[in-house]
Structure formats: structure tokens, C-alpha cells
């Protein structure tokens, strides 16, 4: 029976991957905040921040699965297979493990909805993506209450720092989010109206589809207000363009 595995390394792996998962999800949430608040475009591209957010989230999910699997497989603590998905079914530390299960269920919703992002409505995906904040909050509580390393020393520091970083990111996200009507990217170099095309096709002669700008009054006034220089920005992609 698989429950007979008594190697102490499962328990060590559980503790270590729990800590790593917490740090990784702190990174993921922070990077997601950077994407949502339109950071990037000068030194690093915005799409690069987005790609980091997506990639690190996959790594974090892998670590989370290892964390959960080693906990269940290890016979040192009597959790059960059912407590992976259903909260409050663990015999060991019922409430703290249950909180972790809640966090995992929420993350599962966020993860599956992101995998199905092209198939579901974007509004649904965004709504489900808000769950990640609740998931992180419950994960912090789970880390503090059930973690054997998080009561003192370095473990406590890690938990406090992670909670602080995400709390700051949350404040920034909710208070400082760019409003749609205010010209949210007007202060970034991306908004310069230089010709984006590097090909020899004459985009200035072709008709263009404009979104958003049609409701604005005067292009010239906005140009004066933004006031940044129109220096040509190097392309974000290293690949050679025709």
C-alpha cells in the first residue's frame, strides 16, 4: 500500500516545497499586478512581464502539486487522498490543512480557467482570476497555521515578507489601477505615435482601424500634454525584421 511510505524525505520535501510554492506564488501575484497596472515598455517589454507571469505560475503549480502529493503519500501525517480537494477532511490538523485545501481549490479554478482561456469568455476568466487574491490570502493563513517552520526564524520572515509584498501589490492594484478613460498608457513611450512598421509597406497611406481614440477630442492637444520625446524605441523582439 502506498500509505506505508515512511521515508522522512517526504516530510522534508513537503516543508521545503511549501515554502518554495509560497515564494513562487508571491512572485506570480506581484507580476500579475505589474501586468494589470501596465508596467513595462521601456526596459523590459510588457509582454515579457506577462510571459514571466504565465511561466512562473506553471512552475509554482508544479511545486504545489509536489507539495500536496508528498503530504498525502507520507504516512507521518494522516491526511487522506480525499483532503486534496475537499476541505476539513484531514485527520491531521483539520482546520489548517482545510484552509490549504480551500486555497488549492481556488487555485485550481484559476489554473483551469487560464488553460481554457481561449475557449471561455474573457469576462469569466477575469472574474475567476480575482480568486487568486483570496487563494493567496488563504495560502498565507495555511502556511502560518500548519507550517512547522513558519513560527520562528527564517520561515516566519519568509511568510511575513510574502504577505507584505502581496498586500502591497493588492493595495496598488485596487487603489492605483489605471482607469480606462484617463488614457492609461499616455505616459509610456509605447504611446508615441511613431511608425511602428519596419517593413516598406506604406501604412501612412493605408486606411487604419482605430479603437479608443475615436472618442477623444483632439490628437494634437493630447500630444502636447503627454510631452515625452519621440525617440525611436528599439524593437522589443530580437528577431530580425524584414
Amino acid at each position, binding site marked *: 500500500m502506498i500509505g506505508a511510505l515512511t521515508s522522512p524525505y517526504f516530510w522534508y520535501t513537503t516543508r521545503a516545497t511549501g515554502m518554495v510554492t509560497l515564494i513562487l506564488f508571491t512572485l506570480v501575484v506581484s507580476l500579475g499586478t505589474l*501586468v494589470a497596472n*501596465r508596467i513595462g*515598455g521601456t526596459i523590459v*517589454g*510588457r*509582454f515579457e512581464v*506577462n*510571459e514571466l507571469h504565465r511561466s512562473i505560475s506553471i512552475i509554482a503549480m508544479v511545486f504545489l502539486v509536489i507539495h500536496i502529493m508528498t503530504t498525502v503519500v507520507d504516512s507521518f501525517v494522516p491526511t487522506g487522498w480525499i483532503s486534496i480537494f475537499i476541505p476539513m477532511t484531514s485527520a491531521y490538523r483539520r482546520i489548517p490543512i482545510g484552509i490549504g485545501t480551500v486555497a488549492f481549490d481556488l487555485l485550481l479554478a484559476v489554473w483551469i480557467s487560464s488553460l481554457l*482561456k*481561449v475557449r471561455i469568455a*474573457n469576462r469569466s*476568466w477575469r472574474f475567476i482570476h480575482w480568486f487568486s487574491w483570496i487563494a493567496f490570502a488563504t495560502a498565507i493563513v495555511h502556511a502560518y497555521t500548519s507550517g512547522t517552520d513558519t513560527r520562528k526564524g527564517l520561515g516566519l520572515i519568509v511568510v511575513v515578507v510574502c504577505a507584505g509584498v502581496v498586500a502591497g501589490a493588492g493595495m496598488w492594484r485596487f487603489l492605483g489601477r489605471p482607469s*480606462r478613460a484617463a*488614457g*492609461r*498608457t*499616455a505616459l*509610456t513611450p*509605447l*504611446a508615441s*505615435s511613431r*511608425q*511602428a*512598421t*519596419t*517593413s516598406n*509597406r506604406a*501604412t501612412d497611406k*493605408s*486606411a*487604419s*482601424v*482605430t*479603437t*479608443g*481614440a475615436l472618442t*477623444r477630442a483632439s*490628437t494634437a492637444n*493630447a*500630444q502636447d500634454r*503627454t510631452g515625452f520625446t519621440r525617440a525611436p524605441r528599439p*524593437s*522589443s*523582439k530580437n*528577431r530580425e*525584421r*524584414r
Partner: protein
Amino acid sequence: MGMRRRVGGFVLRVNPILCDGFGHCHELAPELVNIDEWGYPIIEVTPTPLADVSILESARYAVRGCPRQALRIERVTEQS
């Protein structure tokens, strides 16, 4: 793939209701997408030949990278 399916062209289309002006498409497909002062895309409307694989690849990156799923690639099959 093969040569037969390279006939024709494509245009990148944006859903202006979904678009929130993140600007990722301009970074990922600068050949096709310009950006206005408010960060919204101005997309090339002249069809690009499908044989132009580097631009097609950029367009696919832009579709994949859009945080609002507002972009799609539309094939234009009209023959000249």
C-alpha cells in the same frame, strides 16, 4: 502546412470592446500594430500574405499574448 495553404493573406483584427489598451500587441507584432496616444492599437488593414511567415508568427504571438483575448487572425482568401 505545405505550399497550397500559403495562398491568400491574413489580417489581424481587434475586438474594440474587449481591448483595454495593454499594448502587448504592439510589442509582439510591431509590423502590424501601431499604437495611438492612448495605447490602443492601430492595425494594418492591408492583408499580409500568409507566405510571410515571420509576420504571421508575430501575429500569432500577439493573439496569444493579448491579456484580453481581443485579437484574432482572419484569413482573407480573395484571389488577385
